[in-house]
């Protein structure tokens, strides 16, 4: 874990968001009267990230790997347990009160559940006026005009100003969520699985909307997702998370085309391929479940499911290496070749012999 502190940013410009060794632990309530605190959940366990202005960082990983917690901690919706968050050259790890409220203008969030993120008792007009009202900002031309302009920008009919959230489809609801996030022209938006609750056809629309907004305004995204196809479409850089830690990070095409971490190999092999003739690759299926974040494995957290794990993996946390500029891997045995078929304890299935699922 501590080795990740040695990560150096290879980019020339200072990143907009700089996360170093970020930790977020949850303490479960103790059982019994006398025992106040129970076990600790290591949800985010020392992650380091950089996001540059106007760029998109995709954060991928299985459910329960801590990617949403990481997003919320960066947004300061959760108090970080340790580490450091720098935004725009300023340490925001512990900002409070008025300065935190001012910071909210610069950082916004789009949530996973489009319906749940909108108050069902408020009209769209009220929901979209909240950023202006809370931040005490009066846009030129008045709030109502600004809201209708926002609705227009995200592809909603401005005449629907007085409607309630349940009168919209899931895709439209997420557009409302996006409109709320961009209302104050933030520099960074954390998107927490913004399209995973939507139909495939709607997903593309919302992702394209996010891309258009980025081209227009130069906003940076932290795009949290478990769908690699979506991340490939939007991200400039990718960070692969596993059990609260980052396994591999680098430019999108490098991570997708020349992955070096066995976990990234496994994730990529699970992406469906449209062309049946091209399905000659081996599918790496990880055996066993994700270990409990209550008691992460010693050494390398991935070792319990890793096909190439050796004795050292249980003893020592892997050092972070940078085989090429900007491409960082936390593994004792990084390799561009996917783990071999004969390796255990992974089951490897030849997808070419399988029926399409």
């Amino acid at each position: 874990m501590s080795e990740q502190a040695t990560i150096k940013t290879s980019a020339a410009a200072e990143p907009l968001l700089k996360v170093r060794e970020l930790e977020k632990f949850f303490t479960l309530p103790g059982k019994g009267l006398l025992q106040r605190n129970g076990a600790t959940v290591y949800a985010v366990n020392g992650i380091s990230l950089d996001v540059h202005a106007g760029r998109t960082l995709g954060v991928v990983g299985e459910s329960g790997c801590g990617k949403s917690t990481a997003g919320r901690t960066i947004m300061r919706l959760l108090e970080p347990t340790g580490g450091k968050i720098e935004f725009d050259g300023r340490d925001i790890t512990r900002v409070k009160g008025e300065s935190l409220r001012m910071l909210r203008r610069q950082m916004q969030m789009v949530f996973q559940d489009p319906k749940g993120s909108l108050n069902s008792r408020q009209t769209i007009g009220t929901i979209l006026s909240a950023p202006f009202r809370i931040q005490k900002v009066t846009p030129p031309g008045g709030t109502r005009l600004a809201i209708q302009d926002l609705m227009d920008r995200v592809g909603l009919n401005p005449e629907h100003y007085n409607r309630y959230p349940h009168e919209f489809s899931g895709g439209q609801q997420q557009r409302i969520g996006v409109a709320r996030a961009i209302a104050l022209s933030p520099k960074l938006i954390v998107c927490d699985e913004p399209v995973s609750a939507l139909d495939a056809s709607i997903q593309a629309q919302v992702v394209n909307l996010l891309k258009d907004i980025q081209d227009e305004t130069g906003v940076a995204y932290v795009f949290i997702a478990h769908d690699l196809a979506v991340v490939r479409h939007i991200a400039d850089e990718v960070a692969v998370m596993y059990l609260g830690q980052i396994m591999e990070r680098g430019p999108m095409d490098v991570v997708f085309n020349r992955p070096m971490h066995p976990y990234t190999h496994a994730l990529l092999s699970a992406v469906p391929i449209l062309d049946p003739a091209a399905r000659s690759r081996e599918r790496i299926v990880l055996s066993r479940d994700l270990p409990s974040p209550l008691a992460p494995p010693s050494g390398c957290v991935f070792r319990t499911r890793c096909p190439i794990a050796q004795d050292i993996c249980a003893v020592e946390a892997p050092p972070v290496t940078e085989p090429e500029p900007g491409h960082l891997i936390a593994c004792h045995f990084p390799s561009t070749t996917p783990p071999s078929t004969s390796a255990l304890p992974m089951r490897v299935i030849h997808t070419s012999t399988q029926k399409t699922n």
Partner: protein
Amino acid sequence: MSVLKTPNQAAAAADVDQVHVVQRSSLALTMRRLSRDPASVIAAVFIIVLVLFAVFAPTIAAWTGHGPDEQFRETGLSPSGIPVGPGAEFLFGTDQLGRDVLVRLAYGARISLLVGVVASIVAATIGVTVGMLAGYFGGRVDTLLSRIMDLVMSVPFLLAAIALVSVLGPSLQLSIAVIIFFTWTPIGRVIRGQVLALKQREFVEAARSLGAGHLGIMFRDILPNLMVPIIIYSTLMIPSAIVFEATLSFLGMGIVPPTASWGGMLSEAAGNSIYLAAPWLVIIPGTALLFTTLAFNLLGDGLRDALDPRAARKA
């Protein structure tokens, strides 16, 4: 409907169908569901009649020509001092002092409704405030407020009331205060539980991510989502407050005579076993009390079903 349509035709048909679809507000939908429940309709009508009865109590007194505290020793009592039964002069008969029971019932309804409505509104306000603070802030605030609610719930109602009255003397204000003190806890617990669930919702997180403060989140985001339980519980608190008031008055710890109140009327009927000679002195205020509490309870149940259509109605 089984005819296959091309997408265009189907879309056109959908357009035509839409003309007939009336968009109803949630209030209109609630009222529609409520009006389909006969028990709720009867209860609502009864309550409206009762309110009119109470509001027009002076009119009734003027119409009968009998004041609420006026004693008719010649016309209202038999030569041997027994109350006169229901008849043309006194519709609901007279009591042991020769007072008109109908007029006193109307004035008693004023007290009952006043106590019921005022006590339940104040108790609901206290309960919602405490429950919201406990649920929203959690931690030590929650522990403290929840233990206070437990404490209040564990105080024996009648013993505390008797002790307070013997120290402060009976009065309307004191009865209302005692009733409020003993009825705000259940709604407080319900609201606490609801807020615990609501504050985890993403729209609350969204408000936080916009920089909203605690008060803003509580009032703008959480409170509107609590309106349904607040309405239901406030309605259901009215009958229990009315019964509490009647109990206190019956025991001589509530409304001070000669002011008319239903509990006081029952108490006077019990005195000297006068009800053996004049059973209407028990039957009339007792029936009024029974139907009033029943009506508010039925309306509260009906409101719960109408406001929360997802709650399964197993009938």
